């Protein structure tokens, strides 16, 4: 569906050239929800804007739905853009138009006649759950409702691809989840390919099938979301994974416990898929002469399975503790001994 080949984007700047996107290659499949994560300035925004020709690559080619977006111009590009919709962080609705009129805007651009337009608008309003708000102005809506209008507007011309530019970054966590659920629903129902960029691993975890991690213009890691969670390679990826698996205070808690419990070890366990359901703690205590104290645990759902983390404190005779850790290692569970820094 989308093919990005050796794409570079160089912006001239006062301090010389800025390589916003540096030799990126990506293939995104039809019907996939593909996430690009990175901190601000990583080049993800420039990358997504090249998918609908809002930015042109300095070199390389971008092909979306059979069209070489990086080459076409004028009427052909405008036609292509009707098939590659975009939603935005700040919604970008026309304040002078009502909800219905905003959703009708892309239909007017596509030259669809009024009776048919009305019909399509009311379908879309139902699809995104905005019944009863048709005649409200954007200023009368909440953030989540505004993004729903943005999504309805983006879907109006039955696009093949939906680009989400930090679409949930301006929303509170609860609203973020409802918008993400809507996106998954649309992906399943319409078979739409979705490309989203974000700096929140939560968003990737919740809806993406695959993820690319970007750092200073390059894709440094790429893979299935669950694999990336299980086995992050780069330090930046590890930091993103920690956003979801370790709440802020975990580190402080661990350090505090290391100080308090001079003996034993604090161990972080990571479970993927099947192993989440094994009675591993019971087995550890049964087979080894140790005490186990559960400090903190969490199970997260991704699109392709669950992923859990557990922090425990194992205490007892040193040899027994080591034996216990070895036992856990043999159980297809990721083990990391937490030490104070």
């Amino acid at each position, binding site marked *: 569906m989308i093919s990005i080949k050796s794409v570079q984007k160089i912006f001239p700047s006062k301090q010389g050239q800025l390589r916003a996107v540096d030799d990126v290659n990506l293939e995104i499949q039809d019907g996939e929800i593909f996430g690009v994560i990175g901190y601000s300035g990583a080049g993800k925004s420039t990358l997504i804007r090249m998918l609908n020709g*809002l930015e042109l690559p300095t070199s390389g080619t971008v092909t979306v739905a059979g069209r070489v977006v990086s080459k076409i111009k004028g009427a052909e590009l*405008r036609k*292509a853009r009707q098939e590659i*919709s975009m939603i935005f962080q700040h919604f*970008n609705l*026309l304040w*002078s138009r009502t909800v219905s009129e905003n959703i009708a805007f892309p239909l007017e651009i596509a030259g669809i006649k009024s009776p048919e337009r009305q019909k399509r608008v009311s379908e879309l309003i139902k699809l995104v759950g905005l019944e009863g708000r048709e005649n409200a102005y954007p200023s009368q809506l909440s953030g989540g409702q505004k993004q729903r209008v943005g999504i309805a507007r983006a879907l109006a011309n039955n696009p093949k691809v939906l680009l989400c530019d930090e679409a949930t970054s301006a929303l509170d966590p609860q609203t973020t989840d409802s918008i993400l659920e809507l996106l998954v629903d649309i992906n399943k129902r319409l078979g739409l390919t979705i490309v989203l960029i974000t700096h929140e691993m939560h968003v990737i975890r919740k809806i993406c099938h695959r993820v690319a991690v970007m750092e200073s213009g390059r894709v440094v890691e790429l893979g299935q979301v669950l694999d990336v969670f299980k086995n992050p390679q780069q330090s930046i990826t590890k930091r993103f994974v920690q956003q979801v698996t370790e709440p802020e205070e975990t580190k402080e808690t661990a350090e505090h416990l290391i100080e308090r419990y001079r003996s034993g070890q604090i161990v972080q366990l990571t479970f993927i898929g099947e192993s989440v359901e094994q009675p591993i703690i019971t087995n550890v205590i049964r087979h080894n002469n140790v005490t186990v104290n559960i400090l903190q645990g969490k199970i997260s759902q991704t699109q392709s399975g669950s992923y859990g983390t557990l922090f425990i404190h194992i205490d007892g005779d040193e040899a027994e503790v080591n034996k216990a850790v070895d036992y856990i290692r043999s159980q297809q569970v990721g083990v990391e001994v937490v030490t104070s820094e």
Partner: protein
Amino acid sequence: MNSKPYFEDFDWPAMWEATRQTLYMTGISVVATFILGILLGLLLFLTSKGSLWSNKPINVVISGVVNIFRSIPFIILIVLLIPFTTILFRTMIGENAALPALIIGAAPFYARMVEIGLREIDKGVIEAAKSMGATTGTIIWKVLLPESMPALVSGITVTAIALVGYTAMAGVIGAGGLGNLAYLQGFQRNQNDVTLVATIIILIIVFIIQFIGDFITSKLDKR
């Protein structure tokens, strides 16, 4: 200099005729300024750096012309335009003769206000329209103008009030209207009642323009 008692032999028909002339001059010049100012303002905005028709030479030229005409004091502009007006109307006296100066004086001033109004539109909204495959024409008609309409209306309100003042000035060189009446009858013949009534009528016109402008702006603004 003996002034006669107030409102003795007061020439009301002449006063109404002058009022009609002022309204005529203001009306025509406001409409023309609105159209011309929006055209110039759009050009200024569209040719500016990073905009849809980004073009430095054209922007510099339009910007220069606008700045020059905006800087010439109105009373001098009228004099400068006398040859042009005589070619156009074969006379330089009467209400039509004031129109070129009024429009050329006010349109650049309004064009700057239009430009400011357009700049206030969220860039993201223009980008969203682009991402939907809109042509520049569609962006102008369906995004730029509707989204800046409250600013365009409040701008033309301010300009219209300035134009009422300009018509009074144009009256001094023979264009007719309340300014002309107040100057010839009121000042030169020392009929203070004429000056007083002309002033009151001008104030009423200004208040009405302001009221209508504020009303339309508040109706249009859905932010």
